[in-house]
């Protein structure tokens, strides 16, 4: 049983990070129909900037704040300089632009920082906490708690504020949103900024456990995209569920079946789910108008 809880906790911890990346994907996708393959680079920026600013002697909380600010700035720049000028381009062109952006950001990080792996100190010590016989790192609770807070904040923002409702309206129908006076350009910029912030926070929270380097973004973007599709693209709750599920699949697959094929279980399950439910687990059936 102790083993079970061990896998459960590590699965939830990794899953929470996937969920945050998937949430970032969903936010941008809903506002602008862009699948942002540079999403993983926000996570990388969060971790790397914190590491290097903290190394310069800045206290950790302030360094984290600076990292989030940098990521948000990069997200806004990505929108203003690369996505907005290409507005109306075919979906696949926009995807290639975000892939170009992710190559560029990785190149910039490699140049400004270095190619080494970096670690942040755990926020509240390294002494493992015993939970039902499983040894859990305190940082896991930071990751889970952080993810929960972000999901809650996003929910309140979307459901309880006028600006949040403008985001939802833009996601539902961009033209109709513009007709009722919503500035959809602002909403899209907001989505890119918010998504960057979420990614950066995920990067800061997970770095004490998994380390970070200039190229951690690729795999995270892959997993986040997979999680978003698993939950049903465009559904924020689906993204969170998909992320947690993906993390748990990996942890239990690695624990009970084969650790070398850890990454395979997730993708096998995704293929099976998509065969049975082509819209993902929580996706709505879309009726195609001709």
């Amino acid at each position, binding site marked *: 049983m102790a083993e079970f809880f061990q896998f459960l906790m590590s699965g939830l911890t990794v899953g929470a990070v996937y969920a945050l990346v998937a949430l970032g994907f969903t936010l941008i996708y809903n506002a602008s129909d862009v699948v942002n393959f540079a999403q993983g680079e926000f996570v990388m920026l969060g971790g790397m900037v914190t590491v290097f600013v903290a190394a310069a002697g800045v206290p950790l909380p302030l360094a984290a704040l600076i990292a989030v600010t940098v990521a948000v700035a990069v997200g806004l720049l990505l929108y203003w300089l690369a996505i907005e000028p290409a507005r109306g381009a075919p979906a696949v062109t926009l995807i290639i632009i975000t892939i170009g952006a992710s190559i560029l950001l990785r190149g910039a990080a*490699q140049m400004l920082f270095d190619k080494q792996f970096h670690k942040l100190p755990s926020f509240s010590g390294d002494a493992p906490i015993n939970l039902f016989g499983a040894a859990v790192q305190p940082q896991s609770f930071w990751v889970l708690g952080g993810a929960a807070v972000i999901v809650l904040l996003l929910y309140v923002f979307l459901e309880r504020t006028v600006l949040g409702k403008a985001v939802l309206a833009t996601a539902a129908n961009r033209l109709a949103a513009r007709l009722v006076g919503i500035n959809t350009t602002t909403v899209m910029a907001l989505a890119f900024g918010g998504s960057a912030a979420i990614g950066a926070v995920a990067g800061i929270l997970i770095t004490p456990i998994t380390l970070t380097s200039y190229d951690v973004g690729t795999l995270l973007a892959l997993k986040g995209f997979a999680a978003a599709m698993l939950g049903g693209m465009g559904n924020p709750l689906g993204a969170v569920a998909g992320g947690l599920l993906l993390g748990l699949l990996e942890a239990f697959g690695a624990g009970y079946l084969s650790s070398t094929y850890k990454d395979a279980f997730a*993708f096998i399950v*995704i293929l099976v789910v998509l065969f049975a439910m082509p819209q993902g687990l929580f996706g709505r059936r879309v009726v195609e108008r*001709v």
Partner: protein
Amino acid sequence: MPAWLGHRSLTLIVLAAIVVLLPLGFPSSYYFRVASLVWVSAFAAVGLNILMGQAGQVSLGHAGFFGIGAYAVAIGPAHVGLPSWGALLIGAVISAALAWLVGRPILRLKGHYLAIATLGLGVLVALVITTESRWTGGPDGMSVAKLSLLGWRATGSSTWYWITGGVLVAGTWIALNLGETPTGRAFRALHDSEVAARVAGVDVARFKLQAFVIAAVYASLAGSMLAMMNGFVNPDQAGFLHSVELVTMVVLGGLGSVVGSIVGAAMLITLPQVLTVFQEYEHLLLGLIIIVSMIFMRDGIVPTVSRWLAGRVRT
């Protein structure tokens, strides 16, 4: 598109002329090697363009088939005792069979769901290659036997230049002609509107599957050629980043344009070689060039340039 560019035989003659004449300006064997790399990637991109540009279906896992082809010519001679050319054919058959088997359920999916399913397929192939190290040498890769045919051994960069160049011309000829066959017209019909194609009597599922299998075979053959040319394979060739690179070639050059795929491949292969001069700025500049060209030429380089030329001729 101006008539002289749209004309198939002229396109083919120009391509063949470029392949034949290019070496005249090559100062060293390094240039032969880079050009061969371009021909191999262009061959894979031309195949992927049949799926993406003509039939309108995305594949984010195409390097998986590339990897199958590459590892077929590595494993065949080393572990099974097959001749290289036999292993190459078997690799193509395996790729076709896999594409056919998995394509049936996958190709029912649309848009981003199709993207993630093909991505998953590619990741799984890469994982198997990385993990089954007893056969594949694992993450370190393995060496590949030289191609030999009736006592003749293919070695040296100029030999491979002619092989890859010849294969590219043949592959381009097939892709260009395919566009004008009933199959090619069916591809375009389902690209424009699946529903309309189905109403017009096109068996949508069958033609999507055909395009997927054809593209898989192109990628597999390209993988085999690259492996034999390098004398070495590693799992990166089957990886996600390579899939992305292939898709970028097709989109950068221009979806649906056969010439575009070759131009896109030439750009993505030669740019990093040129940019190594800038050393650490290499990736930064590569990303920047991709972004800027996609913003200003959103339909891809070749369609945009030919439209521009057509406009100039008219006025």
